């Protein structure tokens, strides 16, 4: 098995599915790059090169460069999805959702329900998320809570290359609209990734390590932050279970609840802003359905309630890190010790 980066794994998934299924198309800004220019076509393969090479293999009929008009990109994908294609639309940075949100949440997400179950809308919206690139307030956001809030959407947030490939193939084959969020700061993370196609079902968490003392739920890039914290904690004799739900909608509630039933403590790590967030979502789930097992407060480690700043030191302070996760774990465990003292 070869080592592949998340970037390569995503490319791989797209390539394999486009080979397998002629109705899969790619549409977005500069997904090839160079249309109409005086130089070469396939100049970019997306701003960060993720779709590089697909244009060469599949041509302009299936790797479709567009104007900078996201409502039309997403709307065209949605319209194509209900009429026979299986489009993968690229919404470059998820921060741009604001110019096309209607097509996502009022159109694609609601067709099936509004039409009484008579529509299938098999489309994927790939988009880059996350801070860490010194790209400031409009190019660094983690907006998965907004999509997770909306019924009809599925939301996928891979944390590693293996998952990225399997989840994206699943997303493409899935008959519902899927928001597929790639964290741009971990594109180069490598993993063992099989060459052939495989799928990972939605709503099945990945349990990265098991420990009796505390449950840490984290997604996307935050999984790595959580694992760092878990290692530090282990060194101090505190054993954490780390759960990567991989998809926020659907959510593998059982894995989270079962773990908290055992550990009695929950910390959620989420790069997004704190209010009405995925972090609060998991907390509320547990505060209801695993309440009896809880031995300490549920701690959330998130970005502050502020936009993403540009200055590097501020941005670094903005993003949750292992030290903060560790502190959160210690805080909830302290409550138990206090109680039993």
């Amino acid at each position: 098995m070869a080592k592949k980066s998340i970037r390569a794994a995503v490319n791989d998934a797209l390539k394999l599915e486009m080979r397998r299924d002629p109705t899969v198309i790619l549409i977005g800004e500069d997904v090839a790059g160079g249309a109409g220019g005086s130089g070469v076509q396939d100049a970019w393969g997306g701003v960060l090169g993720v779709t590089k090479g697909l244009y060469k293999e599949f041509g302009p009929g299936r790797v479709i460069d567009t104007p900078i008009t996201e409502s039309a990109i997403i709307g065209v994908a949605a319209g194509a999805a209900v009429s026979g294609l299986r489009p993968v639309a690229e919404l470059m940075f998820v921060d741009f959702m604001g110019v096309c949100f209607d097509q996502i949440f009022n159109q694609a997400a609601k067709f099936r329900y509004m039409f009484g179950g008579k529509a299938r809308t098999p489309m994927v919206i790939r988009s880059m998320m996350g801070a860490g690139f010194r790209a400031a307030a409009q190019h660094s956001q983690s907006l998965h809570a907004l999509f997770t809030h909306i019924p009809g959407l599925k939301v996928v947030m891979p944390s590693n290359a293996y998952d990225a490939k399997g989840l994206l193939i699943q997303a493409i084959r899935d008959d519902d609209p899927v928001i597929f969020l790639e964290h741009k700061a971990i594109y180069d993370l490598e993993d063992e990734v099989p060459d052939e196609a495989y799928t990972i079902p939605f709503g099945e968490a990945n349990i990265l390590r098991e420990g009796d003392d505390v449950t840490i739920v984290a997604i996307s890039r935050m999984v790595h932050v959580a694992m760092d914290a878990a290692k530090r904690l282990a060194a101090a004799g505190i054993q954490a279970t780390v759960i990567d739900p991989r998809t926020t909608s659907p959510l593998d509630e059982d894995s989270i609840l079962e773990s908290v039933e055992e550990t009695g403590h929950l910390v959620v790590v989420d790069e997004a802003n704190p209010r009405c967030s995925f972090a609060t979502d998991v907390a509320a789930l547990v505060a209801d359905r695993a309440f009896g097992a809880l031995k300490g407060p549920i701690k959330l480690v998130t970005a502050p309630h502020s936009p993403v700043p540009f200055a590097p030191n501020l941005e670094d302070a903005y993003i949750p890190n292992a030290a903060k996760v560790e502190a959160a774990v210690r805080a909830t465990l302290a409550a138990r010790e206090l109680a039993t003292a």
Partner: protein
Amino acid sequence: MQLSRDKLVEAYRKMATIRAFEERVGAESVKGAIPGFVHLYAGEEAAAVGVCMHLGDKDWIGSTHRGHGHCIAKGCSVEAMMVEIYGKAGGLCGGKGGSMHIADLHMGMLGANGIVGGGPPLAVGAALSAKTLKTGAVSVAFLGDGASNQGTTAEAMNMAVVLKVPAVFVIENNGYGEATAVGYHCGAGDISARTAAFGMPAEKVEDGTDFFAVYEAAGRALRHAREEGMPAAVEIVCARQGGHYTGDPQPYRSKDELEQVKKNDPLVRFRKRVTGEGLVSAADLDQVDREVAALIERAVQKAAAAPLPAVEELTTDVYVSY
């Protein structure tokens, strides 16, 4: 583009069905039999039918909040529509969509739309499917004068030209977006010229209550789309006979204007022309009227009698699988 007698009768039947449907829906709505609010298409029949007479089942249309006419013209079941508008089980969308979300993908009807300007990108998407899958289909985006200003419409028009797809934009300029007149809300003054500036042939039908004028202009646009695989547009200047929604007292329209609208009734004009030219007899049209009336009556009976959806359906069909 001479229409056969059968086609003329079909066109009349569709227009008459739309009219009867809308008048009845309006009446039932005022009576309280229909939940929510409805936007009626009465007065604009020549637009939907003049366009859809050129379409087959595999062609696509995207519609608007004022969508009943488009549905009927495209061939959706009138009974299933009525049941849907009543919010009952067995409706075209199982009672979950209602008037503003009627859709029938099997009939190439991509859906009414509660979002002004929501439809055009979707219709371009269906045109892309047609091109990619080489189905030979075309896709029509119906939109209003108000919707013609919406950014999504501009984007869809440009996208259709760039992607070189067989999409036709049909702008039903009924003079108003809600209570605001086109002379105010459309800075350009001329929707067709603005549409043409996006890079496609755009024709204006000044008298959109004349079925034949619409039919011919739409024919040219659709032929262009089918033969060249490229977008085109038609603006149809028409008028709604009623308010924006059932119950709108329309103080923003003068009596004169409303009288003028009544005078230009597309059904009356159609009847006059085809009987005057001896193409179809008045008796035959009367017979159509009777059949239509019976159809609508049946639909209303069925809708009124239909049960509400089972309450378990509240949470079904959010996803294909979850």
